[in-house]
């Protein structure tokens, strides 16, 4: 039975991850336009990926905060609107090729590897690229990753009841895209932290039957 609701904006990378054999029993796609409190009631966690519909999420923010108030976990990645989040996100140019052009200067300079999602990761597995930064976060939030300028990349707070983990990394989208081949390491740890279940070891595969006429509409 799925434990993690993946808020779904109809984007193919979201779909690719949630229908991959190693993840499909743990993630349930929740189409953002059909998102209700009833749909998330029996889940342990929500994952809000990069390329989400932030305007609709703002309309439905009570569902997210009520979910947190029930003591559950929410993971938020990529860009995010301050309209529903008590934090300030700002855009920055995405650097996909720092590891080619300037490998000693990654987009994340400091990581708390004691956090369960980051335990055992190498620096390359803990950062590939970032989509902007947080210039302010909720009071008392724990800072987990920063860049060389001191801007916040990843933070976590318990002030809403459960745990909200936010990052400008985009592990769900990029793992769905499958152009970065080491992301099983991050996403498997993230999935275990969210659900309590570690996905089967090994590289993510694709189920061809999930595409085309077999795709859930």
């Amino acid at each position, binding site marked *: 039975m799925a434990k993690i609701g993946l808020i779904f904006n*109809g*984007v*193919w990378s979201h779909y*690719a991850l949630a229908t991959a054999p190693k993840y499909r029993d743990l993630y349930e796609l929740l189409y953002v336009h059909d998102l209700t409190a009833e749909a998330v009631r029996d889940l342990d966690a929500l994952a809000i990926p990069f390329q989400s519909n932030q305007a609709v999420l703002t309309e439905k923010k009570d569902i997210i905060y009520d979910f947190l108030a029930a003591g559950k976990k929410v993971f938020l990645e990529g860009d995010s609107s301050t309209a529903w989040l008590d934090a300030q996100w700002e855009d920055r140019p995405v650097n996909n090729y720092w590891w080619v*052009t300037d490998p000693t200067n990654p987009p994340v300079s400091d990581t708390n590897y004691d956090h369960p999602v980051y335990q055992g990761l190498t620096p390359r597995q803990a950062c590939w690229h970032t989509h902007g930064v947080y210039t302010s976060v909720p009071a008392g939030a724990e800072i987990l990753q920063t860049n060389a300028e001191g801007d916040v990349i990843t933070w976590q707070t318990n002030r809403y009841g459960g745990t909200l983990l936010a990052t400008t990394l985009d592990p769900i989208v990029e793992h769905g895209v499958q*152009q970065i081949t080491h992301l099983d390491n991050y996403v498997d740890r993230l999935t275990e932290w969210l659900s309590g279940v570690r996905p089967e070891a090994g590289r993510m595969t694709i189920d061809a039957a999930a*595409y*085309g006429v077999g795709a859930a509409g």
Partner: protein
Amino acid sequence: MLQALLISNGLQGLDKYYVSSDLMQYTTCLITKDFDPDLMPYDLLVVPNGSDHVAMLKIKDKVRAFLNAGRALVCCDGFFTAWVPGNQWRMDNSRRTMDVLYAPGTDRHHLLDNLNLDELNYSHGMTGWWACGYIEAAPGADVLLADTWQRPIVVLDEVSTAGRMLLTASGPLADVTYAGQSDSALVALYRNFIQLLTFSIVPAHG
């Protein structure tokens, strides 16, 4: 001037990639729960990278009717649901991205003119950065670009409907030139298609 309907599912920055010009006027259609746009006032339907293919599946019959009225579609995304007439995108990660190279195929309308293929093949010396997966192309459609394993990556389909479709296997395209810079391959391919739409009617309507 052509009129285009740009489908948006609320992604940040989409308007920066499709900018109206003397050739094209863009109208953005924001997807809502009751998504059901009137396509017929437009010449071109643009479904950009990162789109909502659940919503597109809901209007697949409208899309087919729009195309059968001689109109055009650009979809430069992973269309995982079955809404594009005659063609289907498939995700695949069984091949190494470092082995991906695109090669030109049939190009009767010169859509690859002025396109530097190296820009699609390499970014900072790395291959496999642009498209993902491949397209199961309609029989008789033109495969403009194929990958290392001869799988269709860019398709021009003038056979499945009475209109035209330019499809990429999730390789983004754009309609914007930045401050005097030369057009990138992503823009060149798109604008060659716009030129085709502007100056050449669909053969079925000739």
